[in-house]
């Protein structure tokens, strides 16, 4: 599994363009998953609930020993789920209408064609291998547990009691062991005493399942669970009773995880490029309005000042005129008096 730094990302993407990968991609917008990928077909009408698969899984994956031995079938009295110590469990479902006896169902990772865990992982710790298995890489996982939120089957489990190095634990379809040649088939399949589990190419398994439904009308519900659920899974199920009755959700729909988020992710770049433009625009507008306001204010001020000046000048002129007038009057008066005085001396 290659690591990429953010720059590496750039490199890879760039390389992609150079290689014309995107050009090819332009050609294929329909995705059917890896054509040669393997899977497992589980047939609930054959499962006898012996828990051999659990034992087999535990053995090949070297998981810690269980609290109660695998041949203790009392365990089946309660519904269980996988946890950090177990990759798979079998549950028993009693008195189902239309069923002769109890029906058993194996629970483990379904290895989606479009894994929600992979789609949700922000460090790409999950990989969908060409062989079909969805595997997890401990070297990058941050432990955010978003994959557990995302998985529609509640598959990934977390080592909560690990203080510093908790790992995600889940079925790997034994991909590592099979690719490395340690195993021919997954541990659980190898351990199943009567081929309730069949390992093979997914395409083949679907054919087998269809054939079984055809050969034994009335034995099976006419549906292959996992053929289309959440975009298809590499683990397929056949059952004689409604899948709901054996604890499998029938309301998951056929939309795959990436499809669910692609829309939201697509808007991100839109915001990134439109917002700045929009906001700068708004800013500019508000600025402009403000400036105009300020200019108007300035004009008003100057106008007032001029008017004041004019008034002042006028007042000054007035004052001058008055002064002149008084002076003249005084002079006149003085002259008259002088004349009067002259006449009195002559008599």
């Amino acid at each position, binding site marked *: 599994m290659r*690591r*990429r*730094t*953010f720059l590496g*990302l750039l490199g890879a993407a760039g390389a992609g363009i150079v290689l014309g990968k995107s050009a090819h991609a332009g050609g294929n917008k329909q995705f059917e998953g890896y054509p040669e990928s393997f899977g497992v077909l589980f047939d609930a009408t054959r499962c006898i609930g012996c828990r051999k698969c659990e034992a087999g899984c535990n053995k090949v994956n070297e998981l810690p020993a269980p609290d109660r031995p695998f041949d203790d079938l009392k365990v089946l009295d309660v519904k269980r789920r996988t*946890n*950090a110590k177990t990759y798979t469990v079998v549950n028993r479902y009693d008195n189902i209408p239309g069923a002769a006896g109890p029906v058993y169902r194996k629970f483990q990772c379904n290895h989606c064609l479009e894994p*929600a865990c*992979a*789609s*949700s*992982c*922000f*460090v*790409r*710790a999950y990989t969908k291998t060409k062989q079909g298995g969805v595997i997890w890489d401990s070297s*990058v*996982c*941050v*432990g*955010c*547990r*978003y994959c*557990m*939120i*995302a998985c*529609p089957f*509640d598959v990934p*489990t*977390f*080592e*909560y*009691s*690990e*203080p*510093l190095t*908790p790992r995600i634990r889940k079925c790997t379809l034994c991909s590592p062991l099979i690719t490395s040649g340690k195993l021919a088939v997954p541990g659980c399949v190898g351990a199943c005493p009567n081929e309730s589990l069949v390992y093979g190419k997914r395409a083949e398994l679907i054919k087998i399942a269809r054939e079984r439904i055809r050969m034994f009308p009335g034995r099976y519900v006419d549906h292959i669970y996992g053929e289309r659920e959440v975009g298809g899974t590499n683990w397929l199920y056949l059952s004689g009773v409604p899948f709901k009755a054996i604890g499998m*959700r029938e*309301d998951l*729909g056929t939309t795959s*995880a990436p499809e*669910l*988020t692609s*829309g*939201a*992710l697509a*808007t*991100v770049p839109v*915001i*990134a490029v439109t*917002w*700045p433009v929009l*906001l*700068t625009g708004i*800013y500019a507008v*508000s*600025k402009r*309005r403000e400036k105009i306001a*300020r200019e108007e*204010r300035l004009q008003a001020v100057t106008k007032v000042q001029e008017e004041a000046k004019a008034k002042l000048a006028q007042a000054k002129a007035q004052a001058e005129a008055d002064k002149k007038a008084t002076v003249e009057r005084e002079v006149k008066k003085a002259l008259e008096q002088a004349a009067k005085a002259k006449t009195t001396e002559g008599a």
Partner: protein
Amino acid sequence: MSTEQTAVKKTLLTPFNVVAGIIVLIGVAITFLRFTKGLAGVTNLSDNNPWGIWIGFDLLCGVALAAGGYTTSAACYVFGLKRYHSAVRPAILTAFLGYSLVVLALHYDVGRPWRLPYPFFVQPGPTSVLFEVGLCVFLYLITLFIEWTPACLEWLGYKKARNIIVNMTLALTIFGVVLSTMHQSSLGALFLIAPSKLHPLWYSTYLPLFFFVSSIAAGLSMVIFEGTLSHRYMHHKMDETYLAEHDHVTFGFAKGAALVLACYFCLKVVGITMDNNWDYLGTGFGAWFLLELLGFVALPCLLYAMAVRERNLRLIRWSAVLTVLGIVLNRFNVCLVAFNWQLPRADRYFPSWMEIAISIFIVTVGLLVFRFIASRMPIFYEHPAHKEHGLEPGHGGQAPEVKSAGHGFGH
């Protein structure tokens, strides 16, 4: 961080400090547990319920309530509502602290905290919504830090550095808004991938939109709310500009919040209609949903509106509180209550007391740091050294930013 707290604590022995001290001590103790016993030791998390209140409250609510930062700065610098200027710094500071605390909280919740930078520096997973959230929060935290530094630099008296940063205000603000839009909405988008687990009433393809719009309301209300608190406890730290503008800010934001809430309400109703979830309203979850929608969206919206009309500050504050609670309730519902709604009661999640304690601890740390900074740096007042900007013709203290923005773009 805690060292600082203890320092603060020693100096003055008010009841607040004592309580805070105790909380901090407990927090430290649990922190120790967390990193020795693992998550199992302190939380009620399980394989069915991988996310608890450390995500539901500390992350989702933390981010939503820290929205005050971008809303205020946007209002002031982008929409040119100058009179809000004095509210910007407190808002930025709270936002910055808020986000830092979110990151702090993540260190508790995440399995291997030291790997938090991995998505950006080691191996990015761009198909993940979480990657988008992480990236935005990461960048926005930096942005906020830069936006906040002027206060710090003024305090330390580095004039030049301060001015350089102030020059970039507009750019930073816009960048901040963009990032916020992205990650606020993406927090909602986180749950788009789990339609089978989230109750139909809360699940909608509009989730991102809901989260974004509600975050604006939350931000505005938070600013009002904090304003009230700081008024009570930091009054001595405030200058007359702040005090003078405070009421304008409150009324203006109240008006905004009312509008946004109205919009949010309509969107929610559209959401139900689009998915035709009416019949779910008849169920117990439906009642709960209606409570959230009517009691914590429609009601505060109306109260705001009336309070504004009647210029009633007290009512505004109460509406703010109600809104904030409403957002918290919504985030809780999406992340915890309505999530895994189909699981049998036995498998449902309820937080352990230690989880709650840690959340409280983190909030307390936030308060203490805020007080530490606000009581030293020019947050509620303008630094004397930079006062003159404030006296520029016309309008409050934003003039420097305006001019500087000018420079910033000028050449």
